[in-house]
Structures are given as C-alpha cells and as structure tokens.
C-alpha cells in the first residue's frame, strides 16, 4: 500500500475558492445521444480556421474528415456523427463572432462506431510524424485554451526539453472532467505520454494532481507501465495551481521568465485529457469527435460528466442534463476563468471543459456597486504572478494602458481572476485587464 505523500508542492500566493466538486466527482462518464443538428465551427482552436473538404448535401460517416488544417497553426475537424451536411455557413460562436461552421444533420440510426484510419504507431513513427498525426487528429488543449497541441509540441531547434508535465490539477471550481478521465482512461493517458515523450525528446514525465483527488493519484501511480519514466505528484489545493507557470514552479521549482514559454525552462505541459486523447486516437488513426464535459451547477438536475459529441448545441446539452426553468446564467468553463454565454445556440467545441448553470437565487446576490480601491493589498497577495493589480486597476481606469504594459507587466496577467475574487471593493480588476490587454494587442498589431 503506497503511503500518501505528505509534502505537497505549490507556488506562492493564490486563493482558496470553494470547489463545489463533490456533486460530480464520483459520477462516471456517460455518453450523450446525438442532437438533431450539430454545428461544427471551423475555428475551435487558436489559429487559422480549418478548410472544409465536404460539400453541402454530402453524406458523411462518423469520424470522417470534414475539414483539413489550413497551414501550420490549424487543425483538422471530423464528423461527430454519420449524417448529411446541411449547410456550410455562419453560426454564433462562443467568441461572440459569427464563425463559418459545418451544419451536420445526423441520420436517425447513426451509430457510435467509427472506422479506424491509418494508425500512427509509437514504436515506428518519428517525432515529426507523431506531431503531424496529432495535427490531423484535430487535437487541441482540452483544458480550455484550445491551443493546437502539435504546435505546443513542436519545440524550436534551440530549445531542449527534459521534462514533460501532465496537468491533472483541475483547480477550477465545479469541474471534474479531468478527475474522471484520470480514473477511467488511465491506460490512454500512459499511451499518450509515450507518444509525447517521443515527440518532444523529454526524458521523463510528471503527472501533477491536486491533493483533493487522491483516488486518481493512486490509480495512476498503480498503473504506471513498467520502466516508464513517469512520476505522479500531489500538489496543494489552491487556485490557480493548474496554470502552466504555477504548476512548473510547484513541481520543479523553475520560473518561466516574464513573456517566456515553458520551453525556456526545458518543460512542456499538456493537459491530462489531451494526453488521453492522443493515446486513444493515434493508435487507431482517428480524429477527435467528442470530449468529456462536466455539466453542473444549481440549475442542473442531472449533474454529471458526459461524453458529448463536438458540435452539440448548448441548448440540447442542457436539456439532456435537466436544466431548471429559472436558470439565469450559463458559464462555459469554470466560474473563475470561464465565460458567461449570451446565447444557447452556440455549439460545444473542443475547448469546452464544463458547463455551469446558475439560477436567479445565486446571481441576484451579487454585489453590484464598485467602490474605490482602499489599498488593502489583498489583490497583491493573491496574484500568483506577483503583479500589482491595485496599481494596474487604477491605471486602467485612467486609460494608461501603455504604462500598464511597460511598467507593470500587464501582458503577463493570464486572467486567473484571483485579484477580482479577493477585492473587498468589488473592483472588476480582471475585466479591466482583459480590455487593456486587448487594446495593447491591437496597438501592436497595427504598428
């Protein structure tokens, strides 16, 4: 019997929001039926939209390639169900823009089986071939950022990777998808790690898990294949422990420099569900067509973890999970870094890790009024990046965006929201920063 380790690694600062995970953490992953119409946006990832390879009216098989990557920073899309392509046109999207999308109407008897494609074998494939296979499987970071995984794994020539970190922290309140994936797709995770170790040249892998998931840690630790250089480490329960930079500091004591990437400290971090997806799809030569999503929150009666076809409209997903009448807010992702939606007609995409629905009982209690900053410095103590949100907030109000970036490291802020969470004056700090960052990025793009 392994002893639970007592030393729990972590980073400095951070916050402890209530986690609300108990309602779904023990719910096994369940499959979802197909929606009457599915909307597959051509842009579900950061980068260039995919190029459709099907035409309106065409019949497609579940798992068939329907759009191919357009350039390097772009990934493929596959049909989530067997059916007919009804339309290729604009559809509302989580980003708030209308995005070119493929509308697929599944056949009434569409089954779950998928024909295998050309496998990419870990023993024989070169690192380059693995990276291409990942791109063509359409895999992106499933933790929420939706950054194409093959781009992340393409390490520049002058950088050397020694450690692969598998992120199983899941510090975002309410979400339990990674937890379930670790318990139920353990084998896939290790297969995926094997591919990624080879692709990046890393010598070892560390799976980092928050200490509130000891069962997952135990299961993984017991399943480590012989002679595989993998460690499972528990990290302290603290938000935002799952942010790449925080996790690297916690596990390895290395600091990613301001404006730098994990590769600068010889590390690559990928989410545990992304690893599982690589491990499941590559040996079978398939593409990603579904993902595990936690549907939860006070406005949901059948809270749980569901395997949902990509392209399923939000409204259909919520209906299946039993949405209450008096729902008043729906958030994609978790409540800290997620985003409230304004329309239930948007589809679930590869980057959707959770759906949290609230009733008016919760949303009515939010404090409305914004008070001036009292310089309590709670936010300074909370910011995991040691920024000064108080100062940044004051500059934002004055529109001093350039100074925020030049003197106060605005662009390092990754919008974790810890500062807003602790602010007793209810100042929407992270909202200010999001706007400021957008403006600075625009200015840069113009010049």
């Amino acid at each position, binding site marked *: 019997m392994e002893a639970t380790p007592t030393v729990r690694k972590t980073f400095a600062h951070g916050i402890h929001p209530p986690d609300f995970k108990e309602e779904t953490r023990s719910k096994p992953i369940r499959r979802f039926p197909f929606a009457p119409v599915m909307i597959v946006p051509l842009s579900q990832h950061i980068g260039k939209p995919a190029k459709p390879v099907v035409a309106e009216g065409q019949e497609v098989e579940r798992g068939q390639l329907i759009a191919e990557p357009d350039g390097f920073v772009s990934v493929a899309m596959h049909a989530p169900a067997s059916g007919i392509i009804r339309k290729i046109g*604009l559809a*509302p999207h*989580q*980003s*708030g*823009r*209308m995005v070119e999308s493929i509308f697929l109407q599944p056949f009434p008897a569409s089954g779950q089986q998928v024909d295998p494609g050309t496998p990419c074998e870990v023993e024989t494939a070169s690192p380059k071939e693995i990276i291409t296979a990942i791109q063509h499987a359409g895999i992106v970071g499933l933790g929420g950022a939706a950054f194409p995984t093959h781009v992340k794994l393409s390490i520049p020539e002058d950088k050397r990777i020694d450690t692969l970190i598998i992120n199983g922290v899941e510090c975002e309140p309410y979400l339990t998808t990674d937890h379930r994936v670790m318990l139920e797709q353990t084998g896939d995770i290790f297969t995926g790690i094997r591919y990624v170790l080879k692709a990046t040249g890393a010598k070892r892998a560390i799976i980092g898990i928050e200490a509130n998931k000891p069962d997952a840690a135990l299961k993984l630790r017991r399943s480590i294949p012989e002679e595989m250089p993998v460690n499972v480490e528990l990290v302290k329960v603290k938000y935002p422990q799952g942010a790449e930079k925080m996790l690297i500091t916690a596990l390895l004591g290395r600091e990613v420099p301001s404006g730098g990437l994990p590769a600068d400290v010889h590390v690559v971090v990928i989410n545990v569900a992304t690893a599982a997806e690589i491990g499941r799809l590559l040996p079978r030569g398939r593409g990603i067509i579904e993902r595990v999503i936690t549907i939860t929150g006070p406005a949901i009666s059948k809270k749980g973890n569901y395997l949902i076809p990509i392209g399923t409209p939000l409204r259909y997903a919520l209906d299946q999970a039993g949405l209450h009448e008096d729902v*008043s807010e729906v958030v994609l992702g978790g409540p800290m870094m997620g*985003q*409230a*939606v*304004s*329309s239930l007609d*948007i589809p679930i995409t590869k980057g959707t890790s959770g759906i949290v629905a609230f009733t008016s009982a919760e*949303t009515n209690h*939010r404090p*409305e009024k914004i008070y001036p900053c009292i310089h309590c410095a709670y936010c300074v103590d909370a910011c995991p990046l040691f920024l000064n949100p108080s100062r940044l907030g004051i500059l934002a109000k004055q529109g001093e965006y350039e100074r925020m970036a030049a003197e106060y490291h605005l662009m390092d802020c990754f919008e974790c929201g810890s500062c807003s969470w602790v602010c007793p004056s209810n100042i*929407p700090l992270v*909202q*200010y920063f*999001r*706007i400021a960052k*957008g*403006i600075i990025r625009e200015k840069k793009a113009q010049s």
Partner: protein
Amino acid sequence: MNELLQGIAFLGGLSLVLAIVLVVANRKLSVYEDPRIEQVTDLLPGANCGACGMPGCRAFAEQVVAGKLQPGQCPVGGPETAITVADFLGIDAGSTERYVARLLCAGGCDVAVQIAEYDGYPSCRAAAAVTGGFKGCVFGCLGLADCEDVCDFDAITMMENGLPLVDADACTACGDCVRICPKGLFELIPISQHLIVQCKSLLAGDEAIELCAVACTGCGICAADAPEGLIEIINNLAVIDPDKRQLETEIATYRCPTGAITWIDKQQFADVTTRTQTVAR
C-alpha cells in the same frame, strides 16, 4: 586684505572664462528654428488631440512647415484653419473636406432583439468579450457608451434607443470612437456624403431580420437601383464603394425593404429623440 583681493580676482577671472565659454557654445551649438513653426502652432486649434497622427499641434506645425503634411490634414481646425495656415505659408491647403463619424448600425433596443441580460462591468468592450454581448445580432451596437466616454469633444450622446448620436457640428473626426468601438461601428465619412448603410450584419435575409428589423438583408435591390458599381453586396452586406461616392443617389434607398440604406443630411438619426447621459456607470 591680500587674500580678499586674490579671491575677487579669482572669481572675476572665472566668470570671464565661463562667459566666453557660453558665448562660444551659443554660437556653435545653437539650432536654427524656423520662427514660422511657432506662428503656425498659434494658428492651429491647440487641442493637441493627435487626430492628425502627430503627437500634438506643434509637431503638426513642424511637419507642415517642412512640407511633409498639408494644412488640411488637421481635422479639428476645419477648412478655415487650413486656409489661414496655407495662406500664411503661401502653400496649398490640400484637401479640406470635412469628415464626421457615422454609426453603421441603426439597431436600437426598439428594433433589435436582446437575447440575454448583461450584468457585468458596464463597458462595451467588456460586454463584447462575453460571447459578443447580449444582443441577438453580434455585429450591432451594445449601447454601453464607450464611445461617448472616449470622445474629447462631447460630440457623442446616447439616445433613448441606446445608440450613440454624433453631433456633426461638434465631431472633429479625431477617430477616437472608431478605435474604441469593439464592434467597429464608426466610420469617418465626408460630411458631404448622404448615402450610408446603417448596418454591419453579415447574415442574410430572414436570419438577419429575425434579430433586427432594420438589418441589411443583402437582397441587392439597392445595388441594382444605384448607378453601376456604386454599391456591391459583399458577404450579404451592401457596401458603398468610397471611390465612386460622387455617383451617390437617393434612389438607391427607395426600395430597401428594411431601411438599412438611408439618405442623411448633416445629422444622422435626425428623427430620433436624444437624451443626456443616463447610462448607468
């Protein structure tokens, strides 16, 4: 006594040497500055708004005196200033056409569907970051008044229907509203132009009208009625070719089923009531 004299002599000598150094330095290092720069600066409005692309009026004056910019490029001063400056320098004023910011959306809360309540930080840019805002039409104005706030000339007032109204007399075409609007709804258009398409929706036909009664449906009637080449339907939206502007005619608006394309005189939305700022901040 002797020491005192010595001291006086020393200090006197020192001042003499320093005075000579200063005279020489002044001769050698002085920069000739064209006095006209100062004079032109005085003729400019002194708003230092940056609308000309320079960091301030003085920098603009330097460029004009150097012949790199034309007097007409100060949008705030208008034609009168441009001509005064041009006459003073004995040069051409350049194009002095006056521009004004026009709003390319007429979808106020009375005609456009709202699909969600927004109770976040009251700013268009913040709301736009949340799935595009709360309006059915993701292209349209959110009405949270970022443009009104940013305008240094008090030229923008929010109307009862939630849309910003630009006072064509006060607008200096500085372009701040163009830059701040997250939906890119403002365009600087010559005040002499009457024909505008007050919509940016890329949806077609019924899909567009379902969300907003005054949407451009991309039906193409205006393009067919207008002189050849003036209007083109691009991505289901009528677009006026800025180079063919002199061809504009009111006929293009007569058969528009939604009124998205309109003929305006000096003031846009002349028929809509205004209100002073009541948007909750």
